[in-house]
């Protein structure tokens, strides 16, 4: 009976190694598939202050909007559909809703509207949906609607049914985070003017670490065990000491061997609602930084998705059993090779 205590909840880690010079590398496709990114944190060893072009990219990331108590049927409003959703100029996620407790909503840039509903809400809404893969016993339902499909054209039966369901039967209202893609500003104004909204800039935090022990990383995949490397990267990002001093019981995490000591390293992170295009630009800047001669020939970039997002990579369903981690960590080297580690938790499908 207690055999279950030895097992930890299932986690999935996919490790991939490739090069930017290789035509078949899938990195852009993989980055594009995670639509909603919460945080990007970069670690630049042997760097005292952020390079100016990197800072310029951080500052040029678009701001995002938070709309309070948005009725979800507003996303199906015909002017909004035609100007914003069908053109792929908007994407958003419900905020202040927990995936394993509440109903969650996501609007993808490809025009897919995804709802993760509990049993009562799904029965009230009256729209077709699939049973949730991970919460079968509690009868959750995963509803995914393609708003660009001809079946959901405004005026059609499918569209009318969904709008009627959201407007009168279910009346789903959540706080909503909306990100603006280039060219989409004007189309959002009509929607924003009707509700209480606020604009937010992504939060940038930067921290210089003195005397940091870094593992010796080479582009060979066997140089460092991925689990230990990710553990060390997480400890550095969370400012947890990896010294493992004998008189401190707070942390026993250590830097993986073999290690070297750097005089200073820069850890910089940006939090908000970030688009995959922002992540691509940061990757390009990291590669540009590596082209200059460096003591440590690597840079790491970790991208976290939202724990409470109903979708993970692509349109796959995401859930939380005990921890809804959803992130990927990219290790870039000077010779244009990279190592990519994609990690998900128990209630997730395999990353691409």
């Amino acid at each position: 009976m207690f055999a279950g205590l030895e097992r930890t909840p299932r986690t999935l880690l996919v490790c991939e190694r490739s090069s930017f010079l290789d035509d078949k590398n899938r990195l852009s496709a993989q980055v594009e598939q995670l639509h909603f990114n919460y945080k990007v944190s970069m670690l630049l060893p042997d760097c005292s202050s952020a390079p100016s072009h990197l800072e310029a990219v951080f500052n040029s990331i678009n701001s995002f909007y938070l709309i309070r108590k948005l009725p979800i049927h507003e996303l199906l409003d015909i002017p909004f559909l035609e100007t914003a959703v069908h053109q792929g100029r908007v994407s958003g996620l419900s905020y202040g809703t927990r995936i394993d407790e509440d109903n969650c909503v996501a609007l993808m840039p490809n025009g897919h509207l995804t709802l993760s509903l509990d049993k009562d809400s799904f029965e009230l809404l009256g729209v077709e949906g699939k049973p949730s893969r991970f919460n079968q016993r509690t009868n959750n339902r995963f509803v995914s609607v393609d708003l660009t499909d001809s079946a959901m054209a405004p005026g059609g039966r499918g569209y009318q049914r969904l709008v009627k369901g959201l407007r009168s039967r279910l009346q789903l209202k959540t706080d909503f985070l909306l990100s603006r893609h280039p060219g989409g500003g004007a189309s959002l104004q009509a929607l924003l003017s009707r509700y209480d909204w606020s604009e937010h800039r992504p939060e940038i935090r930067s921290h210089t670490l003195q005397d940091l022990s870094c593992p010796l990383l080479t582009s060979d995949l066997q140089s460092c065990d991925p689990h230990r490397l990710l553990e060390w990267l997480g400890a550095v990002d969370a400012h947890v000491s990896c010294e493992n001093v004998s008189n401190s019981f707070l942390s026993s995490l250590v830097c993986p061997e073999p290690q070297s000591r750097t005089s200073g390293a820069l850890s910089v992170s940006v939090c908000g609602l970030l688009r995959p295009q922002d992540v691509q630009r940061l990757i390009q800047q990291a590669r540009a930084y590596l082209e200059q001669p460096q003591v440590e020939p690597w840079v790491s970039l970790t991208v976290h998705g939202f724990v409470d997002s109903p979708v993970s990579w692509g349109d796959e369903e995401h859930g939380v059993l005990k921890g809804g981690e959803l992130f990927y960590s990219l290790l870039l080297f000077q010779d244009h090779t990279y190592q990519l580690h994609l990690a998900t938790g128990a209630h997730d499908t395999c990353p691409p």
Partner: protein
Amino acid sequence: MAVFMDLNVSFSPEKSRMKSLIEAAAHLGFSTVAINYVFEPTAKKKPEIPTPTPIRELIDHLPVVQGRSRPIRVLNRLTVVMSDSSHFAACMLHDVDIICISVTEKLPFFFKRAPVNGAVDRGVAFEVSYSAAIRDSTRRRYTIANAVSLMESCKGKNVILSSAAEKPLELRGPYDITNLGLLFGLSEADAKEAVSSTCRSVVLHAESRKSASGIIYTMKSCSEPSSQQGAPAACSEDTPAAKRARPHLTCD
């Protein structure tokens, strides 16, 4: 998927303590708590069932649950202590929602499958409280021993885990209680349900006991006289509308 609930938060007459308990529960992520009033019938004098204090008097502004945008919901609950253990079999037949498993002693009897299954069929849940395990190491052993023997007979179904906390420090977060459920012998999915969907079933079961099989219920309609017009209220809840005999159905 259901919100996290803690259905056993001990009542104390000190308002500041109740306020800090409810605020701690909201901060930890519980969306619903139930304040527990305990009643122990003594044979000596006429038993007096405690009346619940209105929530407005305990705490004027309900705190928002951390991570969500709704305030916490506070319910009231009455627990009747059956002092004689032979009443345990009788409990299976009574009209109750929750059967609490005692943690203060090693239970002298073992749970038999038949009455446990009968209770599960009727929608009754078994409750295990964990705050005694936090306070005392002997009670920790009894809690785990009693919980494990319960799980063997009920196979992890219809179990709820709750705190019975008297102080805010005795409350634990919902994911921590899920891990504690693993120690009691529940599977991961069962342990998470014990804090969320099973609690929701218990609350719905309690609501349905006031109704006829959960389908029909009566509700007091508003009867405030409108002072401007001076006319009597339109709805009257005293006498139901009388039925009129349908003439064409009478038999000749």
